[in-house]
């Protein structure tokens, strides 16, 4: 019996190796948001043109809240056409698309918007209060808020047509 105890030494390495192997299944950058399922934090900003932009005014609609920046290569540039298409197809169906521009300057932001022809409201977040309120840790990030004003999902990284569709359709089907 005593002879077998010594083999504990190499065996002790196994749990550590297993744990490290498990690490391959995780992504360190993929962090779940604690906001999902809770009321979306309100905000009152002004668009680049000066018009007010408040979350509360869009209660009753499904809101897609997209955080972006003009310096965010390549993801924000990849998703911008998809967002434009989403706006076109959903704006008359009770969906509000709102963009929040973080850590950016007005001129590059306007250039970005003009380049993709975005017509939905976009507001800069000058002191980063709104982005921290939403627990944003990178761009782009998109939040999906239901008619009752609750955050129902968050997508980190560029969105595609499919992602928008898969997230928005179920929320549309819900009655407010």
């Amino acid at each position, binding site marked *: 019996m005593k002879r077998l105890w010594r083999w504990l030494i190499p065996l002790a390495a196994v749990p550590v190796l297993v744990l490290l192997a498990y690490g391959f299944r995780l992504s360190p950058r993929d*962090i*779940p*948001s*604690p*906001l999902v399922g809770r009321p979306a934090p309100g905000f009152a900003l002004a668009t680049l043109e000066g018009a007010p932009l408040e979350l509360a005014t869009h209660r009753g609609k499904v809101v897609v809240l997209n955080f972006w920046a003009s310096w965010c290569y390549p993801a924000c540039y990849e998703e911008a056409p998809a967002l434009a298409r989403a706006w076109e197809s959903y704006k008359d169906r009770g969906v509000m698309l709102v963009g929040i521009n973080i*850590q950016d300057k007005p001129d590059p932001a306007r250039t970005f918007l003009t380049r993709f022809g975005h017509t939905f409201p976009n507001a800069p977040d000058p*002191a*980063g*209060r709104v*982005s*921290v*309120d*939403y*627990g944003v*840790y*990178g761009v782009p990030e998109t939040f999906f808020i239901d008619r009752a004003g609750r955050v129902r999902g968050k997508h980190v990284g560029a969105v595609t047509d499919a992602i928008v569709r898969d997230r928005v359709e179920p929320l549309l089907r819900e009655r407010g």
Partner: protein
Amino acid sequence: MSRRAAAALALAASLALPAGASLARSPDPGAAPSAAARAPASTVSEAAVHEVAAELRCVVCQALSVADSPSETAHQMREIIRDRLASGETPEQVKAYFVDKYGLWILLAPPRRGFTLLVWVVPFAALLAGLALVALLLRRWSRRPGVADAAPPPLDPEMRQRIERELSDLGTR
């Protein structure tokens, strides 16, 4: 004795004095530095902001704290900390706000409760285990105590006489 003392004292002093001299001139780290600039007027000291910020993880960096990171995001977070402290929140409340928004991982050191208590306890337990092992080992090694100064076995009187006789024989030869 005195020469050795002098040498030792000189060496110690040469190391301690520069440190001491810098101590004498250093300001109390808690004092708020002045700025003849347009810093926001606040009653919150830099040190207070720094203390909270040092425990929060900068979300766009890898391992830096919000206090250390030079990034714009960290700067904005520091401003938020400053505002919250100025409006009367305690450091605990400010940290709770960030945890509420980002999750537990925004804290640079896990809370000492629940599962994360493990990370504080296990290394300490390992140290104790190591010390216990060393103590055991030392006991085992010194299980033959006093070998060096065991008293020599008492000498048989007959043997003593014989030795003395032979020694004196040696002397006369």
